[in-house]
């Protein structure tokens, strides 16, 4: 009789009509846990690749150099002409002639600090920065050739562009990964809830036959399965966050590529997974429960 008393003491007797254990019950929790675990990793991956892409874009700001060779007397006019052209070129964010000191510094690795730079027929260098849209390199080259024959355009993009594209693609990959995992998580939780509910069809049928109302039956199952999914997702998320935290830290690499990990407020992001899993389970169980009930008179 003790069980009955426990029953009567229990807060919500409706909960007891749902079989408490067995494989179908574990199915929902475990699926939610496993998929939450994966989702945490996908999230970490996505964040990391996003951060990586941002850093690369920054580090590889789109630049180019124009070298102006001219007799000393005409140098200033020629440089001014080039700057004027650049100003009119769409896609150029900024352009700036380097000072002699700056140029000297650039050459130091090759000549040492003692280069008699003033004595040399040094060309002047103009640094330019593209906008995000970039500019038409071929057109610029042609225009320069026509008006300032001594100007040589050196487009670094040959090796920079792919790096930026790579960064962008990484960001996309991260996003694709998280969308895939999120989709699979939702699908798996829905499936598990449906399978568990299908296994409970006899229970639902019996309840309906003894006069229980649809809402009573559905509520009990929905409540239980949502809680199971929530609990599973919590465990999976915690395990995933723990595993991510245990991964070798990224800092050692100098910060150019952050490793797989959350930083600061990023740690809050995976905490959205359990509620989302619970919402999916809630909707899936509700739909499945009412579909099952509709099939019973």
């Amino acid at each position, binding site marked *: *009789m003790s069980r009955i008393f426990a029953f009567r003491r229990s807060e919500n007797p409706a909960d007891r009509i749902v079989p408490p254990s067995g494989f179908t019950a574990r199915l929902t929790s475990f699926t939610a846990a496993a998929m939450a675990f994966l989702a945490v990793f996908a999230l970490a991956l996505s964040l990391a690749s996003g951060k990586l892409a941002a850093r690369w874009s920054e580090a590889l700001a789109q630049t180019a150099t124009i070298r102006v060779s001219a007799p000393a007397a005409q140098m200033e006019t020629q440089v001014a002409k080039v700057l004027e052209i650049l100003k009119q070129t769409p896609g150029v964010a900024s352009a700036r002639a380097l000072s002699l000191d700056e140029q000297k510094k650039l050459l130091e690795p090759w000549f040492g600090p003692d280069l008699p730079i003033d004595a040399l027929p040094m060309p002047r260098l103009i640094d330019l920065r593209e906008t995000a849209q970039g500019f038409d390199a071929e057109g610029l080259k042609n225009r320069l050739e026509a008006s300032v024959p001594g100007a040589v355009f050196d487009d670094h993009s040959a090796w920079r562009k792919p790096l930026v594209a790579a960064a962008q693609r990484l960001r996309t990959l991260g996003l694709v990964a998280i969308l895939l995992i999120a989709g699979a998580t939702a699908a798996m939780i829905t499936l598990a809830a449906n399978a568990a509910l299908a296994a409970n069809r006899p229970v639902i049928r019996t309840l309906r036959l003894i*006069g229980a109302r649809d809402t009573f039956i559905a509520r009990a199952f929905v409540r239980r399965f949502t809680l199971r999914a929530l609990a599973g997702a919590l465990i999976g998320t915690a395990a995933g966050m723990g595993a991510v935290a245990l991964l070798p830290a990224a800092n050692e690499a100098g910060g150019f590529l952050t490793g797989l990990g959350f930083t600061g407020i990023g740690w809050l992001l995976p905490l959205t997974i359990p509620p989302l899993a619970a919402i999916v389970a809630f909707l899936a169980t509700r739909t499945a429960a009412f579909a099952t009930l509709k099939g019973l008179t």
Partner: protein
Amino acid sequence: MIEFQQVAYSYGGGELLTEITLRLPPGSFHFLTGPSGAGKSTFLKLCYGELHPTAGRVTVDEADLRKLSRDGVALIRQRVGVVHQDCQFLDHLPLAENVALPLTVTGRPVSESDLGDLLAWVGLKPLSDHLPPQLSGGERQRAALARAIIMAPDVILADEPTGNLDWEMSLRLLTLLIELNKMGKTILIATHDMNLIRNAKSQVAARVLRIRDRRVQLAGSDL
């Protein structure tokens, strides 16, 4: 109470039951017989809306079962206690909770002493803690009857409630049903057991419905 008007039923093949027009008045006591596969269980299922007639209509207290909302059907079932032929329980709940389930699912309080009395009457008191899979065939039938009457329903439909019971226990259950009938409950029992019917007739004004040629007829005195 329950009324059939020109009811026919078919599972998809030919008509199993046809042209049924009859009334089970409140406080009446009926038996339903007929050979195996005649449609006794089908008839009972029509009474509480598990099946809907393919023609005609079934009303419970003037309410057409087919036109009721799902909650309306649930309400009817709370007033009609049914012993199903293949009695199903929630296998994870002990017997006592299973018997009290109709109260639980409608949010009514369970009186410990009433439950105990009822279980004692059907001889299941010592088994209160057992899970349904641990019960014998006859014990399941008795539990099903207990579950059907715990809500003190106005109508009790019992499908072969003594098929797995010894004669003594069958009489005990019959006595219980007769007592309930005397309290005004409407009773309908599908059974093959002619001895049971004879015995009941000696105690109460029981009438016998017989399924023959797809029709449900009042049997004469040929028992």
